[in-house]
Every structure is written in C-alpha cells, then in structure tokens.
C-alpha cells in the first residue's frame, strides 16, 4: 500500500513540481467566524499543500449559504461541507474523499439550563435561533424535531452556529437549533450550562468533498494527505495547535470517507418535513 502511494505521488510528480500552478479553491462551510475558520484551516491546508504538492487555497463565503453558493457556482474545487447532500446539489457530482475524524454530529434543540422550557412544544410560537436555513445539524435536524414535535417556532438565522448560541445566551431567543459538538465546545469555552430538549441520531460530521473537475488521483492524494496529518508529528502539532485555537480538548485528525458514509444525509432529505432550501 505504501508502495502504491509512493507511486501515486511520483506519478503526480510533475504536478507537484508545478508549484506555481493555480491552487485549488478549498471551501469551508461557515461553522465559526471567518477568522477562526481561517486560523484553523490555513495551517492544515498549507501542510496538505506542502505534503501533497497540490496547492490548496482557503476560500470561504461570508455565510455558509454563500460558501455553498460558491461551490454550486463552481468557484470551489474542494469543500469541507455537508450542504451538498440535498437532492439537487447531489446531482452536481461532488464526492466525499475524506472526513474529519470525530464522533459524528447530532442536531439538538437546546435551551439554557435556567430556562423554564422543558419540551419542544413549549417552543411553539417562540423564536428559535439557527445558524442558517442550510445547516444540516444546525437547522434541518432540530427543525425536523420541532416540526415533528408540532412546535411551530419563529426561526431566527444568525449566520453561523456560534452566533445562534450567542443569541440564546443573550436571551434573544428561547432556544437554539445547534450542532451538538459545536454547542458542547461553545458551552465549555463560554462556561455555560444548557439543557437539550431534543437530539437527533448521529451523522458524520462535515466531509471533505472534491468537485468533479478534481481528478480522482488528486482527490485521493489530497484525501490521503489529510488522513496522514495525524500520523506525522508535524501534522499532529498542526492539528493540536488548530484544536487549541478552537478550544478543543483533543485534536482531531481526518479519516477516510466516501459517499456511502454520508448516505444517511440523502435519506434524511428524502423524508424530512422541513422545506429544503436549495
């Protein structure tokens, strides 16, 4: 296997040597602020670019929707996202080449611990913050739960999940629809306690996807490089520093993934009550 990878690298040698080539636009779905996102991803992308010889350049939209629009518009070559699993976007041909090595994500409806709201129905008619109307864990999964619980809430979109959590913290909304992992990180960082009114089934977190015009080889090489970050000391230091910037307890590496690992996304979109925004 090692030999295979070496051969692959060698075959891509001319491409690696072509250092001056136009880098691939690597889009990252807006889960955090732009600066935090860049702070996290740029060291990783630099490392991958160096290692893979394929220059990757972080491209990000002002909002998650804008980032997704960039991907849809073909302005991105690679993307770290889970917004491309809706029926229409799935038809764009993006493929999963790797994923972040995490426990998976769940969609949650949370209130602050001191909130009197105990059930989803109690949120009926109340404002609930969401990151955007495109987020899977941060919108579709909690809204799905709310709708299925019969709670017709007034959605307020904050742009990203931490912004929605901030609105919850400031009391502007009664509850927030969040990614459980991001929420836990946020609560730990901000030292708050919250209560989960609803939690979905687990899903893999965002996937590294390659657009159709990224060759398979390059896709694999890039995926391989991502996956191998955690296997090299330099990669681990980068991941560790990136995790510290985000307030994580433990750094997270990347794991191999394919479209199959994200089939449950497609299934959800097929049966969801929540109107799909595409």
């Amino acid at each position, binding site marked *: 296997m090692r030999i295979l990878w070496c051969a692959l690298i060698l075959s891509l040698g001319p491409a690696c040597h072509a250092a001056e080539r136009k880098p691939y636009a690597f889009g990252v779905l807006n889960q955090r602020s*732009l*600066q935090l996102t*860049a*702070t*996290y*991803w*740029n*060291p990783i992308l*630099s490392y991958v670019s160096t290692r893979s010889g394929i220059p990757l350049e*972080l*491209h*990000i*939209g*002002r909002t998650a929707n804008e980032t997704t629009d960039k991907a849809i518009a073909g302005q991105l070559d690679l993307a770290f996202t889970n917004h491309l699993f809706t029926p229409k976007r799935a038809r764009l041909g993006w493929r999963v080449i790797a994923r972040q090595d995490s426990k998976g994500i769940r969609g949650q409806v949370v209130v602050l611990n001191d909130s009197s709201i105990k059930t989803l129905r109690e949120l009926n008619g109340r404002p609930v913050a969401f990151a955007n109307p495109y987020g899977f864990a941060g919108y579709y999964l909690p809204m799905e739960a709310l709708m299925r619980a019969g709670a017709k809430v007034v959605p307020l979109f904050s742009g990203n999940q931490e912004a929605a959590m901030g609105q919850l913290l400031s009391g502007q909304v009664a509850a927030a629809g969040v990614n459980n992992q991001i929420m836990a990180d946020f609560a730990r960082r901000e030292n708050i306690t919250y209560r989960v009114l609803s939690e979905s089934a687990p899903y893999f977190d965002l996937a590294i996807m390659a657009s159709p015009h990224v060759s398979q080889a390059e896709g694999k090489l890039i995926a391989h490089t991502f996956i191998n970050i955690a296997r090299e000391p330099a990669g681990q230091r980068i991941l560790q520093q990136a995790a510290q910037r985000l307030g994580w307890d433990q750094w997270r590496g990347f794991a191999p993934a394919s479209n199959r690992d994200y089939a449950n996304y497609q299934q959800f979109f097929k049966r969801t009550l929540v109107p799909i925004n595409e």
Partner: protein
Amino acid sequence: MSDAGLRSMVGISLSKRIQATVFALTLSSYLIGLVLIGLPLREMTVRSLYGEAEREVSALAAALQDHALLRDYPAIEQTLLQRVTGSNIQRASFKMGSVLLDKRAPQQKSRYPDWFARVIAIASPEVRADIHLGGVNYGTVSLVQGAQSAIQNLWTLVVKFTVLIVFGMVLVSCLLRRVLKANLGGLYDLQRAANAFEGANFTVRLPLTENSPPEIQQTKLAFNHMADKLGNLLTTLERKQEDLYNEKERLRVTIESIGDAVVVTDAQGCIEFINPRALELAGLELDEALGRQVADAIPMVNEDSGAAVTSPIELALRRNTVIAIDNHTAIARADGSRVSIRDTAAPIRSPTGQVQGGVLVFQDETERRKLMQRLAWQAERDHLTGLCNRREMENLMTTALRAVHDQARKFIFCYMDLDQFKLVNDTCGHRGGDALLQRLAAILTDRVSAPQHHLARLGGDEFGILFSDTSLSDAITVVQGIRDEIVRFRFEWESQIFRLGVSFGVTEIQTTMRDIGEILSQADTACYHAKSQGGNAIQVYEHTHPALRKITDEMQWVVVITRAFEERRFVLYRQKVVSLNPAISTQHYEVLLRMRSEDGETVAPGELLPAAERYGLAPSFDRWVIRNLLAYLDTHPHDTACYAINLSGRSLSDPAFTDFILDTLNQHNVDPTRLCFEITETAAINNLAECERLILSLKSRGIYFALDDFGKGQSSFGYLQRLPVKYLKIDGEFVRGIDHKPENFAITKAIHTLAHELDKLTIAEQVETETELACIKRLGVDFVQGYLLHAPEPIPMGDGIAYPEPRSARSPQAAAN
C-alpha cells in the same frame, strides 16, 4: 543688566521698569515654558501619532481581515475609503499580490501657520501591517497617519497657552500696576515732596496712609522728620541769615558812621574798602582810594620829624600780626595838611591761617593830642594865670630837695600871699579877682624870668617861687623887686582902684628837710609872720626867730588839741552879758571854750583858738560847743538864760552847718530864741554870702545873731544892711580906755548910734573898770561884758551830763562831726 541696558533705561520710571522686568520675566517664562512643555509634548505627540497610526493600521488590518479572507476587494476599497474619510489618516492602501488598493484623504487646508509646522517638524508616520490568518498572508495594509490634526492640536495648545499667558500677563500687568500704584504711590509722594523741597517749599509734609508698605511709611516718617529738622534748620538759618544781614548792615552802617577810620585791603595791601571817615581823614575821594596801595593812598609820617613811616598795614601783612602804630604818626594829606592819627593794623586770616587781607583802623588824634597837651599843661599849670600850679611846684620842690641832697645845689623857696585879695574879690567879684591875679602873674613872670626859676600859683592868692642855684640874698633881691612892684601896682576895676599888699615867706631848702611839707611849712610860717607885720614884709625863716617859733608852736597845738579831744578835756564856760537896759531882764551869757591841760590847768583861749582857727579845728569846736550847750539847756530847764555861741569863719563857709544846727536843735527841747550866734566881723565879711544865708535860715527859727569884734577889722557899715544881726558887739579895743581915750569913746558912740539907728542892740566887751562901765552906760550901750561884771565860769553841766565822747579819736573835727 549691562551698562548699555542700564543707560537705555534712563528716564524710564520705576513703575515702568518693574513692569518691563515683570513683562520680560513673564515672556521668558512663557518661552521657556513653551520649550519645556512643547518639546516633551511634541515627543508625546509624535509617539501618540505613531501609536495611533499603529492602532489605526491594526484596526484597519482587523477590519480588512474578513474582506481579505473573502477577497472582497470592493469591500476592502470601501473600507479604505471610509477610513481615510473623516479621520486623520492621509492615505490607506492594501496590497495583495498584484492587487493594490490605495485611498488618499482629500487635501485639507491646515488652520495653523506653515512656519509652526516647519518649527514643530512632525512628520506623518507611515505604518504597515500584514494580514495573517493561520500563517497565510492575505495582504499588507499600509497607512499614513496624518500629522495635521496633531499639529493643529499642538497649535491650538500653543495658542491657548499664549492666550493664557497673554491674559495672565494682562492680569499680572493690571495687578502689578495696581500694586505698584498702591505701593509706589508713597514713593511718588516722596518724589513730589522732594521736588517741592527743591522748589523751596519747606512746609510740605507727607501723609501717612495705612495701606502703604512699612518701608514707605518709615521713609515718609523719616522724610517728615528730616523736613521738620530741615525746616527748623532753615528757620534758624534764615533767622541767623537775617541776623547776619542785620549784623552786616549794622556793621556797615557802623563802620561807615563811626568816628574811626576803617580801611580793608587785600593780601597785597590794595584798598578794597574804605569808610567815609577814612576818606575824610585821608582827604581822598572813594575812587582815588580803591585799588591803590595804602602806603600810596594814605602816606604816613612821623608828626614830629616829618619822616615817612612804613604803613602799619604793610607791616601787619608782612609779619602776619597786629601792628599798633605809635602816637606820633600823622597822615600826610595831598593838600599838605597833616592829621594826627592813632591806628591799629591787623591781618585778616582764613580759617587755615593764611593771610587774605588786612584791616587798618585809625582815629583822628589831632584833637585828643591837643587835649592831652592841654591837659598836661593844665596838670602843671594854673589855668587862670598860666603859671605852674601847686602840683607842679611840689614836683619841682621834690626835685630840688633831691638835688640838694644829691648834688649840693642851692634852692630858695619863697611863699607869697596877697593881703587884700579877698577884698578885691568880694568887691569886684570873681572876675575882678581873676583879673587881678592875671595882672599879678604877668608882673611875677616878668620879674622871675630866669629859666631856672619857677613861678607857681599855689592857691587862691598864694604864689610860690622856686629859685634854683641861687643864693638867698639874690633870691631876696628878686623878691624885694617883686614886692616893690606890687606895692606900686594899682589895680583898677570898674572905676575902683585897689592898692595891694603882699607878704613873703622865704626859706632855703636844706639837706635836713625831710619833705616838701617842711619846706612849705617854713615858708608859710615865715609868710604868716610877715603878714602879721602889717603887710608888704619879707620874712626869711629862721629857726631861732621867736615869732616864728611861736607860730611853729601853734602848730604843736594841733597835736595838743587832738589829744585833749580824745581825753575829753574840753569844758564849757560862760560869762555873763549884763543888760544895762532895765527893760531887758533876761540873763545873757556868752559861751566860752576852755581846755584843761594834762595837769589840770585851764589853758587860756588866746593860745588855743588861733591855732584852732589857723589849722581848721574851729568848726569842730563850734559843733562840739553847740551840741553840749543844747544838751545842757535841754537837761536844765530851770536855766532860762540866753546863750551866745561863737562861730568861726570856717563854720560859716560850711554849707552843712545850718542843717547841723537845725538837726541838733530838733533833738533837744530848747527854745531857739534863747540862742544867739556870734560872728566876728572879719569872718562875716570874708564869708558874706554864706553868712547872710546862715543868718536868714536860723533867724527864721528865732535864733539871734551878734556881730562880734565890730570895728576891729576893715568893717564897713554897708555890711550891716546885708547882715540882719540883732547885736553888735563893740570890739574890746575900743571899749578899753574909753574913759580916757576920746577916740575910743567917739568910735564906740558912733557904733552904738549907728546900731540903734539900724535897730540893733549893742554889747560892749572887755569892760574891766568901773569908769569904763560908767562911760558905757552914759553912751546908752545895751549890754556890757567883762571881767568887771563877771569872770567866766564853768557851765554847771551837773553830774548827769557828761561831755560826749569824740566820735573819732583822731581829730576834733571827726569828733565834732
């Protein structure tokens, strides 16, 4: 401050100097403050500017992070534009690869002057910042932070500071002016007061205000004290100046009006001042004298020799001492006349003793010297006759006596006394007497013409001749010639012709003589004797001559009488004056004086009285007798008789004698009508006027007078009209032998008849025989007196009456007084 700086401030008032100094200090402080504050402020501003630029670029980088991450260049451009708009950022740019976005702020006109920007020299800082996210450079932001605002702030600060300083200076200036006005007001008062003083207003004083500083107060106080003292000083000075002016005027007037001639010269002896008297004496006009040498203007000569005399002022200036000219100096005036002067010249010295001039003072001595000569002449001359007087004769005699002793020279002194001079004097008056004496002096001068002989008038009608180096016989020859000529001489006065008699006493000055008194005494004695010879006699004094011896003895009586007075050996006797008129029953006595000798014998009055009369003791006797008689009458009231007291001629001539009698009379209870004073005819005639006054004075008190020894002297019946006596006592010379001498009888009868015709009573003296008494009675004489009727007896004074002590043990006269 430099000398130039000090000179430039001449004429600038103290207030302006202080204000200028404060202004300069404030300005300096302002500039120093500006530098001290401005430099750190500038540094701080620069640092602040850089800090702000850094902050701006950081902020801009932060603001552009998202846009750069998103590659949103329009947003970046918009952001850049926003940053340079409305801020101090002059220029902001973003460069990312080939992308360069550059925005500049529009040019704004600064509100501070360019020179301030050049002085402050604060450049607009340009800073850069890279946008790094996760190790990726998203571009470089550069920014030029505009310094205009900072410079403007500094300029504003400077302006405010300046305004503050200016305001402060104005405030300080106002305050300073007020303070200076309040504090220097006193100084200006002092200045005005000093100017007033300079203008001779010495009454100005400074008021003491409470709010002025103590230094000014003390200065004012000191000025006032000074002004007071100066005022007093000036008052004193003015007074002294006035006094000095008055004194000077007084001196000028005095010098110009005094009889002394005053000439003031300079140090060379040239006349600077000469008073009118000096001009008069020198015979000069003022313009002839001023400026000339004293020796030229007022030449001086010895008035005796005529030789030129060195001017005393010349000597005084040369010797620097006072020069007194001798008494023989005279001014030789230009007209040839001379003025005798006596003068003093003295140098005028400066306080350092240097001779500055001289003063010559001289007096006209002409009259004084004439007077002195006249006085000298008069001192030795008799003014009436021009002969030597008694003093000069005494001097000559003293010289002669010394010459006799020392040189064995021979001197003869002759005493000459006129016999009838008093008659001429009384008859013709003093003028007649004086004319007689002058004639006689001419005769004598003619006769005693030899220069070695000296002729002198010794007293009224007494003359003396001192023959020098002449024998007695030659002297007598001359004297005889004088006598003969006087005898031949007839004095005519107002149709009256008088024949004169003269008596001479001659003595030779001997080596045995002790003093001139002895010479005079001998000559007088000889003359007295010669006079007693009947006149026109010449008597040479001889020790052995009996008559002269007797006279000499009389002189011895003086001693005897004086001692008798001291030993109270005088007693009063009385002799009855018997009335032959039956109508007169009152007893009359004549009081007689007797002296007891040391052995108790009664001394005859014939020896006593002539000596007393001759040597001036008679008035003492008279007073003694009067005092004792009145005391007796006062103490013996049973004795009611009338007493007659003899008075001497000298008592009659005593002006105080009348008062003595009246005073003594007042002291005793005695009827004045019981008293009678007897005056000899000779004494009365010799003192006619005095006698007349005495009689009239005492007669008014009831006292009577009797003319004693009437007919004995050269009596004239005419006198009886002037002498209001009650009694005429017919001299005993006519009474004695009246019984057998028809002429005596005739004279007595004539006297008695005349007396009765004149309503006077007559008394016949020395009646010693019965026949004489019978004759007297036959003639009808009123009283008789003599040993025939009553021998003198002591007045019974009684045991209780003692003769009073003599008041002086030295002489009877002193006792009588």
